[in-house]
């Protein structure tokens, strides 16, 4: 009987990053806004996109969230091509972009209840109350969105991301219209998100926030400049 060959120990399977973007390209007419961007976000990691106005930060986020269609490139979530129509992707991705708007006839707390209940969170009301307290909107919980200040509306938009289950937070300039205390709170909250193993991808102009939260910073403007 021939001696049996010893099996080589299998290398541990490669764990794909939470988000992987390869060769992302977006062209508007004759202008290349994004030219071959590579990007990865691991679980428990925060990546910040920075750069001048018009560099393409929001375009990258819009392509990742499915609000815009890239000209070329691949976007994967957990190693699987991302399709924002999939309920699994929608459950994993909590997105706060500039286009966030609300129902004019529902109160602040009713909005948050809706987001939590739509995702089937069992103790929705408790979580909503906690988040409301955290963002400082308890006194405004019965108000309609049209009566909130722009800063309060931003807090409501951020709160809508925190009351639902998520694995990756995608935030487009979350510091907009927040006061100093709000910015401080946001930084602490995002650090906590990381500590809980969630990924954070944000585009920001606030150096304080980026410095406090980001593990890696990608200057989109610089990358595009080199590519050109």
């Amino acid at each position: 009987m021939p001696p049996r060959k010893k099996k080589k120990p299998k290398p541990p399977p490669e764990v794909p990053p939470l988000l992987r973007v390869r060769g992302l390209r977006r062209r508007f007419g004759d202008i290349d806004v994004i030219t071959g961007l590579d990007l990865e976000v691991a679980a428990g990691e925060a990546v910040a996109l920075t750069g001048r106005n018009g560099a393409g930060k929001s375009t990258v986020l819009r392509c990742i969230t499915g609000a815009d269609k890239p000209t070329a490139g691949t976007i994967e979530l957990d190693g699987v091509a991302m399709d924002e129509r999939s309920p699994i992707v929608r459950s994993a991705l909590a997105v706060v972009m500039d286009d966030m708007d609300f129902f004019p006839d529902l109160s602040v707390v009713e909005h948050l209840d809706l987001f939590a209940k739509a995702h089937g969170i069992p103790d929705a009301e408790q979580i909503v109350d906690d988040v409301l307290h955290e963002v400082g909107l308890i006194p405004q919980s019965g108000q309609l969105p049209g009566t909130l200040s722009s800063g309060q509306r931003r807090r409501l938009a951020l709160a809508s991301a925190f009351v639902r289950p998520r694995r990756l937070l995608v935030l487009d300039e979350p510091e907009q219209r927040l006061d100093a205390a709000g910015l401080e709170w946001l930084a602490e909250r995002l650090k906590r998100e990381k500590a809980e193993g969630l990924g954070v991808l944000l585009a920001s102009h606030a150096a304080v926030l980026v410095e406090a939260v980001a593990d890696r910073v990608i200057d989109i403007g610089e990358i595009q400049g080199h590519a050109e």
Partner: protein
Amino acid sequence: MTQIRALRSDIRHWRRGRATARFVDVLGDAYIALFATLMFGSMIVNVVVNVRREAGVMCTSAGCHEARTLMPWVIGLSGVVVVLAIARLFGPIFVSPAVGSWLLPTPVDRASVLRPRLIGTAFLATVLGGLLAAGASTLGGFPLASLLAFTGSAALLSLAVVSFAALSQSRAGLGSRVLLWLLSLAVWAGLLVLALKVGPVASPPELPTGWVIGLIAGAVAALAILVLAFRRLGRLGRHHISPGGSLAPGLSGALATLDLALVYDVLLAHRWHRHDAVRSRRGGPSGPKALVWLDLVRLRRSPQTVILLMAAVVVPYAAETAGVGRVVVLIGGLAGFVAGLPLLSALRVVTRTPSLLRAMPFPVASTRMATLAVPTGAMALFGLATFPAIHASINLTWTDSVIVSIAVGGASAAAAVRWVTGRPPDYTRPLVSTPAGGVPTNLYGSVVRGFDVLLLTTAPLLIFPSANGALFSLVVSFGVLSYLTGRE
């Protein structure tokens, strides 16, 4: 206190030498405006007179005769309701955002600033109310003296209600709100009288001494209310007159692009902006049912939306009395479509707000379907409530009438959903060259949006008024709803 006359003189002085239009251009614009008014006016008059002649020939049944004599009264009063509703929407007294932010905070005499606006509003209300009544009484075949009496009465009533609205504007418009409800109730009662076939045939107003005295007394009363409103102009705060001023640019922008769904958005935001807070309702089910539950919360919060739909049930019954035959399905569908639109606010908001759709963990179609459950249910009930009118008009069995009535509800829902999910004019696509400049291809279609689907879904009922026709209509309505809720 700064005198407004001095201010106006200053403005004239600043403007001197800075005109951007030549005198010839202004004259040309005025000529075109006058020509267009005369042309469109004569077209409308021509249509009204022709319809009156046709109606005189074709209207032979007793029901039609009764409807023809009663409808001018209902339409005339509806015109007054429309005038009052528009007046309340804007204030009726409002100022542009520029005047609101630059002129009102200054120590200028506020009553002097607002006086021309009240005069303009009162004039417009009088003309609009009178024109609507003139059209209605012409269609009703009133003799000239009666037409004049009727038109004059409606014009005076419009003037009185708008002056009253201006009077109550400093008290959050509470009085005009009650008046609007009462007048709407009177219109509905008129339709009900017609639908139940219990009303006496309404005779046209004549011009005996009593009516003339009444007209004079009405004019004095209307002017007295107007004078009172003038006296109270100084009491109006900026918060009373600014909201109407911010509404006007939004509405005119939406109307300029013929985007009627955007008009809906502007009105919805304006309506809820008046409320500071609401009593929040918590609890409810999870998943897509959470959206359905919130629609029930909406019904409880603004029950007038469902009251309007319920009240509109009387329209197909009135049409049946008028002897319209199988056209009752089209009239019923149209009534359900128009009265059902306010119920679709949630669908409209998720249609124009991708971020809300993105925040839901289920497919887009499921989210839209969930926002449709309550409105389509209400419209199906509306349709069902019309089955006796359909039974009497088309002479079907009771079972077939019920199936046809459900199809009418389905047609209303499909048309209303088509209306609220319409896409705005797309100026990035190739434009069609017209004398008015480049026009997006979907601009013209936006005017007939909703009505196209209504015709499509009621066509099977009009051609084959039977259970089979109704089933075919339901299939078409369901297909339209599936397509509209599922598209990206």
